[in-house]
């Protein structure tokens, strides 16, 4: 048939690109994510210029606003087995990362129109937390809300994670939140009109040393008490779930078949579209510059597109939260930690669950599109807002992956990137009122699992904000717990 292809790797047509532009996805990073162009084998080599021309012709882009998407290494598809041969000095922390200087808040992408001069609620951060909260506020009739996002939708960790969703947590609070989130995910497409491709292939945690094995066993008992059907498996039984695994050095596994993976990006688009339908403004490419504060209240949020007078401010900026909080002279204990991730060439389905070796922080799953998507934490990673990619990561990941799944040695890496975990001292979030600034509400510190918690947390938070009823979640995880010394540590963190 007479299609005009822009990206033959992913079968994206001129019509697809124009449809995305007309929906308001007018920057290259968003067009890439919404249409999928440039995400295939060639990583945009044959199609990027075609899309640039379509954007330039659309009349929807300011001068200088046609910018390339970030080119990710490797430039050519490169086998995992080769990456595994790169030397790594585990005794030293990782240094550097490419590309140098990421400008996803380029001024040429910022709207010239001012932001609204007043709003009841200003939410800082248009990641999944902020958008899910805005959507839930809208559902409860609170529509005088503005969401401020410094980049494009998906620019932060919400657009950079591996899409894993699981109920296997170490504390009752997190298990219940995750259960509720997964229930909400099941009905997301019906509520929002956009597919998120939830696939409940399970999570298979592997433990190599005794302490981790004990943790998994203890966890499984707790999960079962919450109605989560986690099973403890022997290495042989785990191999029935994924026959290609070697289970080298593995003592036991924990498997919950109801965990799964989703496609992260449509969550943000779905929530944002739902907000816009009820008149909630989602302002992208807009930076928060400071606050006007008097008598223990935030009065205005200052942005590079004007000031917004407001009754309440929600800080949901993920790894950027400490930086924004500092503008209000609030010190958060959160620290940003880079986590790198990669994606391979697409393969026909072979891998059911997301597999994670909890000892090393290795995790990998197969996306709905067939790619192996995986990452691994680096114990030497220093705290910093660094989203650069390193060869060290790909090498460490490839070695750890090939130890457990040697059959993918010839499989080629197409793209690597990084995002930042928003890490707190007890691996639990910071929620609720800020001591000394009562109308600044915290919604950060999710340590790499905010994505999967967002639907449930946002639902509770919107109810708490609009009803005035107490909710123990916002006391339990209040910022003042660090001063009180009442910490309940979550230890089921990957990486």
């Amino acid at each position: 048939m007479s299609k005009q292809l822009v990206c033959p790797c992913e079968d994206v047509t001129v019509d697809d690109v124009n449809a995305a532009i007309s929906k308001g996805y007018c920057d290259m990073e968003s067009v890439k994510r919404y249409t999928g162009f440039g995400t295939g084998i060639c990583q945009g080599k044959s199609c990027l210029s075609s899309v640039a021309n379509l954007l330039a012709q659309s009349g929807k882009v300011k001068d200088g606003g046609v910018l390339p998407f970030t080119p990710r290494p490797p430039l050519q598809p490169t086998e995992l087995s080769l990456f595994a041969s790169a030397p790594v000095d585990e005794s030293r922390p990782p240094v550097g990362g490419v590309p140098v200087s990421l400008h996803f808040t380029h001024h040429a992408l910022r709207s010239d129109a001012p932001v609204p001069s007043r709003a009841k609620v200003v939410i800082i951060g248009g990641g999944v937390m902020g958008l899910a909260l805005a959507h839930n506020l809208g559902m409860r009739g609170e529509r005088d809300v503005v969401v401020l996002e410094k980049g494009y939708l998906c620019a932060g960790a919400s657009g950079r994670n591996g899409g894993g969703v699981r109920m296997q947590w170490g504390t009752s609070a997190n298990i219940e939140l995750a259960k509720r989130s997964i229930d909400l995910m099941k009905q997301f497409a019906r509520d929002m009109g956009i597919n998120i491709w939830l696939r409940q292939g399970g999570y298979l945690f592997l433990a190599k040393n005794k302490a981790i094995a004990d943790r998994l066993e203890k966890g499984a008992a707790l999960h079962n008490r919450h109605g989560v059907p986690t099973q403890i498996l022997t290495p042989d039984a785990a191999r029935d779930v994924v026959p290609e695994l070697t289970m080298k050095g593995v003592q036991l596994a924990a498997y919950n078949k109801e965990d799964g993976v989703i496609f992260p990006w449509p969550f943000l688009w779905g929530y944002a579209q739902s907000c816009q339908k009820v008149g909630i403004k989602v302002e992208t490419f807009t930076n928060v510059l400071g606050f006007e504060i008097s008598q223990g209240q935030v009065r205005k949020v200052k942005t590079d597109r004007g000031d917004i007078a407001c009754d309440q401010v929600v800080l949901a900026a993920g790894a950027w939260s400490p930086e924004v909080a500092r503008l209000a002279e609030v010190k958060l204990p959160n620290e940003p930690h880079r986590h790198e991730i990669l994606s391979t060439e697409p393969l026909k389905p072979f891998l059911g669950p997301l597999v994670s070796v909890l000892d090393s922080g290795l995790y990998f799953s197969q996306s709905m599109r067939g790619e192996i998507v995986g990452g691994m934490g680096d114990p030497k990673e220093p705290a910093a807002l660094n989203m650069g990619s390193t060869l060290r990561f790909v090498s460490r990941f490839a070695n750890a992956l090939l130890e457990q799944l040697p059959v993918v040695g010839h499989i080629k890496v197409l793209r690597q990137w990084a995002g930042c975990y928003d890490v707190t001292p007890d691996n639990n979030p910071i929620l609720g009122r800020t001591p000394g600034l009562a109308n600044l509400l915290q919604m950060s510190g999710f340590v790499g699992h905010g994505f999967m918690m967002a639907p449930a947390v946002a639902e509770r938070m919107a109810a708490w904000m609009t009803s005035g009823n107490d909710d123990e979640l916002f006391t339990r995880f209040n910022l003042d717990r660090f001063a009180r010394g009442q910490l309940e540590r979550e230890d089921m963190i990957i990486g």
Partner: protein
Amino acid sequence: MKRLEGFQRGKAITVDFEGESISAHEGEPVACSLLASGEFVFSRSIKYHRPRGPFCMEGSCSHCLLRVDGVPNVFTCQTPARAGMRLDRQNAYPSVKVDIFESIDWLFPRGLDHHEMFAGVPVAEHVMAKVARHLAGLGLLPEKEAPARMPAETLRVSIAIAGGGVAGSAAAKVLAERGASFALLEREDVLGGKLRSGAVPKDAEKPLSSADLPKGSVRINTTAVGLYDDEHGRYFAAVSHGPEGLRLLKVYAEQFLVCIGGHPRLPPFENNDLPGVLAGPAASALIRRHGILPGENVAVVGQGESLKLLAELLKASGAQLAAVVDLSGADPGPNAFPGTVSGRELKARGRSQVAGLAFTRKDGEKMKVRCDLVAVALPPSPSFELARQGGAKVVFRPELGAFAVEADESGRTAAKDIFVAGGVTGGLDVRASAESGRRAAQALLGGGR
């Protein structure tokens, strides 16, 4: 496609293509062997199962992927033919020629919106998710584990050059003359790039060979895949294909020169992905590097000097020219290839491979010509990735219709240790590319602005 006579080729061998024995010549890209045997449809596309055959012939698209010796998604345009190698098509049921999933393409002529399709429709969305999972992906798991790779090799030089084409080899020559320490990484097995494989003017300079440069300074069959940094500084990560297999190479340097040219461009037009639509650089490389005439009756489309040069090369190699269509919108000038017409609204015709081209002439007349090849001669899209990873600035150039690295005339970029030359900066002919390489070399050696 037919083999040109009088061309020096490797030993005659056969390869196994889905159980069929295909003649080939040792060392030629195995995609060429298939094309010369009349095989145009290599695979089916990932979503609509449209037929696909080679387009770029330089590892910049995904049209020529096959399963090779049990390894999925291999660029056959980059894989030398070896006796007995096993090639299989992917993503087609029951076969590439008759693929039942081609119906997806016909059933959804306006495309298929995976975001909204069946979203929230009970039952349908679950069925769709299952079907989508099974249709997704390209290629099956490899048959075997990869062999243990040699330990990565590390080099330290003053200047690392990625790309030994026109600009890169011109720069290397200047550096060699001045005794500088450098390493030149070239993806092909020879230096010279377009000078050996392109449609270039007759008076173009002669390409260098590795022997013209200091021993050990040139790494052929070596592709730079990233510009990274670590505690020891910045380096190119590269993959080298040697007789003993693949090896990772890290080249640390104080300064970097990126001369990796550009990617062949696929302009949007109807059925632009049909087998038999071929990038201009691929058409010229087939003729000049591999001795294969890519079509006997060819429609050449494109603009500028590259259109004229490709038309001349095809004609001189024995092809008939069904049409030469200038897409720039301007009337062909006095220096244009004879018979060039100005046209737009292209449409490739044919069911599983090109059988004709339709277009609208500038005067409004609708034209249809029969042809077996549509060759697209457009300036390439600059390959800015490595330079950008190092901090160079990349800008959209409307007159070029592409992004290019911003650089001064000596190739200096926004990153002080990253220099660029040649096609990476956009729209240069071979002469200008070579000049830019020489100027960049002077600048790297500390020459004035």
